[in-house]
């Protein structure tokens, strides 16, 4: 009897599983974690004679967001020539430091050689552009962003943006339009987030210091704004291309629905991330980030409504916008953790899809959406107040 009972209990116990939605949400968080924490490839064979070479490469090229593939002997020769010590010393340098050019012109160039596909290269250069922005912010807060340091970081930053955009354009393959649109959107989100962080840095420097570094930060911020304009244009063009290539209405609908799923998973991942980082950030940043997530979820709802009316291109664009908001929240939270200032970040505004954003019609429509979103945020805040959260 007890054996039968035991077997019955086992059968019931095995029924405890994750729902499809839960499984997918966790999977998406893991995928994001993998993207943020790529592995370094073993460059050479396990032959122990090359051990010190591969150790050097690991020192020289380790970084939290960078990937690379197999290395040719010629490239290895370059690394050997420069010497493992210098490359290692250059790894954590900032603009204005003596070995900073080694980092940007040698270490990172090698990474570019090692990455093969257009998509991987584009991702690498987007990641490097993000790194330049983080470095500029750090150095600006230290009051060290003088003209020379600004020029250094600006040149490298502009180069990374250009290379990212070039590689995005060159992406081939079946889903190239979707991949290009995604990468352009990621790049836009990165630049938008850091633009606001730079504003916060400028305000902080003006309040507490009388040095002239604020002018250099303003100048760098202008450069970021210039690139942002071109990236927004490229993103809109690539989104338009996604639906030009669609063979039928059914294909267009599937494309929009896939993007919807991606956006929903991204929102869940960033919500989990925000909760995990709650104790590391200020209450103000946490509240603003929460409000931004609510805005993004509202944008997703708008997208879902567009799918119902058959405007698949419009829906796709809205889901991409929601994902940009999620990326901005993530960047803001990381900046809040890493920079030692009280970040004053404005709430993220819903973008207007129309090209002519100055027309009265589009301004009214934008205001209407903003008001709806604000209404939801206000209710959300009230509920949280009642629940004592």
């Amino acid at each position, binding site marked *: 009897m007890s054996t039968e009972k035991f077997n019955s209990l086992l059968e019931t116990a095995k029924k405890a599983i994750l729902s499809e939605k839960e*499984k997918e949400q966790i999977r998406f968080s893991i995928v994001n974690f993998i993207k943020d924490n790529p592995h370094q490839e073993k460059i050479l064979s396990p032959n122990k004679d090359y051990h010190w070479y591969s150790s050097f490469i690991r020192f020289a090229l380790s970084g939290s967001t960078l990937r690379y593939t197999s290395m040719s002997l010629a490239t290895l020769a370059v690394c050997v020539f420069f010497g493992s010590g210098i490359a290692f010393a250059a790894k954590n340098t900032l603009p204005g430091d003596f070995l900073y050019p080694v980092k940007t012109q040698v270490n990172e160039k090698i990474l570019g050689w090692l990455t093969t596909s257009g998509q991987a290269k584009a991702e690498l250069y987007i990641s490097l552009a993000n790194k330049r922005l983080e470095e500029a912010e750090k150095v600006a807060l230290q009051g060290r962003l003088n003209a020379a340091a600004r020029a250094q970081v600006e040149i490298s930053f502009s180069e990374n943006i250009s290379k990212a955009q070039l590689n995005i354009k060159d992406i081939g393959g079946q889903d190239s339009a979707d991949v290009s649109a995604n990468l352009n959107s990621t790049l836009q989100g990165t630049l938008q987030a850091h633009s606001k962080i730079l504003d916060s840095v400028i305000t902080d420097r003006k309040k507490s210091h009388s040095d002239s570094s604020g002018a250099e930060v303003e100048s760098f911020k202008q450069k970021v704004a210039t690139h942002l304009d071109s990236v927004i244009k490229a993103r809109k063009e690539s989104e338009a291309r996604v639906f030009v290539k669609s063979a039928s209405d059914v294909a267009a609908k599937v494309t929009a629905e896939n993007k919807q799923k991606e956006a929903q998973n991204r929102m869940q991942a960033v919500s989990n991330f925000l909760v995990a980082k709650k104790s590391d950030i200020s209450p103000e940043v946490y509240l603003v980030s929460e409000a931004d997530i609510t805005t993004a979820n509202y944008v997703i709802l708008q997208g879902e409504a567009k799918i119902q009316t058959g405007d698949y291109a419009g829906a796709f664009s809205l889901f991409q916008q929601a994902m940009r908001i999620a990326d901005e929240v993530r960047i803001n939270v990381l900046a809040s953790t890493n920079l030692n200032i009280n970040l004053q970040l404005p709430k993220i505004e819903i973008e207007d899809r129309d090209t002519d954003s100055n027309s009265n019609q589009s301004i009214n429509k934008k205001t209407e959406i903003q008001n709806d979103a604000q209404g939801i945020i206000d209710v959300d805040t009230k509920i949280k107040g009642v629940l004592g959260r």
Partner: protein
Amino acid sequence: MSTNQEKEKQFLEAYDKYADAIFRYCYYRVFDRDKAKDYVQEAYTRTWKYIGEGHEVENIRALVYRIANNIIIDGVRKKKSISLNQIMEKGFAPKTDPREKTENYFMGKDIINLVKSLDEKYRDVILMKYVEDLSTKEISMALNETENNIYVRLNRGLEKVKEILRKQEV
């Protein structure tokens, strides 16, 4: 496909294949669905990090179990023990078919009674062997014990299970 992409693909395949099992293992240790989900995610991200540090992985399934086990131990140390009623109030691993709801409720109580009555050292091996169908070798890798120790624990654990079930029937 590059080696890195292949590695990612294999890792995610391991997630798709074992996520439910890891979830179950975590759930029957903490009896909290949300916590079990968090532990699943953490187990896989830590496994990815572990592999990234250059460690050789003979059996990824056993590795994820081992890391999940460590996460649970850390979590359990911080938390006070939870009563059976509190567990049942949270809801025993819900099933969608309403006809099975009542049966699940009572089965759920019995499972929880059984699991909570077992010593930790027997509970882990019983869950892994009989609920998750891990081999003795995999269990030994997951718990960092010799296979011989696992055999002994399984035998003693089963004796305990029989004793508990006999008492329940009385």
